[in-house]
């Protein structure tokens, strides 16, 4: 039976781990390579790096981080943030990333998703959707949540599936950093509208939130703070989920 994946996410800036509250107020906290290794040894099903401010800043540091991590961790590594072109994707894959997540560029030019999934395979193309509730619908945001687009998140999710995305990483902008739980309605709506796996992100504060995320229809749950600040270990998370009859790899 396929297990639900638990994915710790490390927000990286200038080669260092940070974790933001609502994408602002960053606190420095360590070496990403070391952290990734701790997570993979602890049973993480996958590791995610988000180079959060990369849309605006020099991002060459991430290549070195990815290269060193991939020589130390033998679980899948997803890298995102500031990925603009097919060449950026190629470079990250060559450094040892297994999947690349694309956010702003996918919105601005869906051809990047089409071309890259054709060239490298859908298995390594993740489209990151940052969505915020606007009345009865969800609107997607770009540039690390700074720019509104007016685009409906559900329609965009369908479009990305058609363009060849292998997975969708869905983050609720309303919930991110609040530790009040995933936007369950958003996760359920998107995952029931696409046939590719959805990774739920944004808002985890408790073990129950992770269980709710999986019950929403997501194939994987992503969290940053609860792992980063040591509130829970990966093992504790998995044991808890297993006790709730949620299939996980232990």
């Amino acid at each position: 039976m396929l297990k639900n994946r638990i994915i710790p996410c490390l927000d990286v800036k200038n080669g260092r781990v940070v974790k933001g509250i609502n994408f602002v107020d960053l606190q420095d906290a360590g070496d990403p390579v070391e952290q990734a290794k701790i997570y993979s040894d602890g049973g993480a099903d996958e590791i995610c790096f988000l180079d959060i401010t990369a849309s605006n800043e020099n991002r060459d540091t991430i290549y070195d981080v990815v290269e060193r991590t991939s020589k130390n961790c033998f679980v899948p590594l997803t890298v995102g943030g500031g990925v603009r072109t097919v060449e950026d994707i190629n470079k990250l894959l060559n450094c040892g990333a297994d999947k690349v997540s694309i956010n702003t560029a996918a919105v601005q030019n869906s051809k990047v998703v089409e071309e890259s999934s054709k060239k490298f395979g859908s298995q390594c193309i993740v489209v990151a959707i940052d969505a915020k509730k606007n009345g009865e619908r969800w609107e997607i945001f770009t540039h690390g949540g700074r720019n509104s687009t007016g685009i409906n998140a559900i329609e965009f999710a369908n479009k990305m599936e058609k363009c060849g995305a292998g997975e969708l990483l869905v983050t609720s902008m309303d919930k991110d950093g609040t530790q009040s739980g995933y936007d369950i309605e958003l996760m359920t709506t998107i995952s029931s509208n696409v046939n590719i796996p959805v990774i739920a992100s944004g808002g985890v504060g408790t073990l129950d939130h992770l269980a709710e995320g999986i019950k929403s229809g997501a194939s994987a749950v992503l969290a940053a703070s609860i792992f980063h600040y040591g509130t829970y270990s990966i093992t504790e998370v998995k044991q808890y989920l297993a006790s709730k009859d949620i299939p996980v790899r232990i």
Partner: protein
Amino acid sequence: MNVTIVDYNSGNISSVINSFKEVAKDKVNIEVTSDLNKIKSSDKVVLPGQGSFKSCVDALNNISGLVDTLNEFAINNKKPLLGICVGLQMFADVGFEETETMGLGWISGKVSKIDNQNGKYKLPHIGWNEINIVKDSKIFKDIENNSHMYFVHSYEFVPEDKKLISATTEYSSSIVCSIEKENIFGTQFHPEKSDKIGLQIIENFINL
């Protein structure tokens, strides 16, 4: 000993390289090349593969003499070869991803899309799934039955001769995930991404 990872522009092979180098340490020389002479003279060959069946077959055919060299290595000389993911799928006669494409024809059978039961199951089949070892395979030495391996694929190779199947995994149906035919080995899952247990499979192949 020399182990060659065939670099034929089949997509991202860094993880395969990193994992083999991690296991090999200084004991075994790991080459990453499409140089035909180096492949011929190596003791073992790894055939990775990402992307579509068609794109991988096309990439193999784009390197003049590569398919002949692999045939000679695996079929005539019967030296150990490990295919990973699409690398395994290419053992088949034919694949149906994108369009009907001839494979290497080493093992009779077809590569078809996994039946997702009308959308009940998501594709690709991504994540960790347990393998049911149905036949002793040299690459499963010290691997417990029902161990978790990392998968990411939408297509499945079904060989005509079911006796060649060494492991399956349960998803929308029972999916073939490992094959052994004499000196030819293949895994649909990614040992290079399956943590310590995956590295053990790589070690088993290196130690054959």
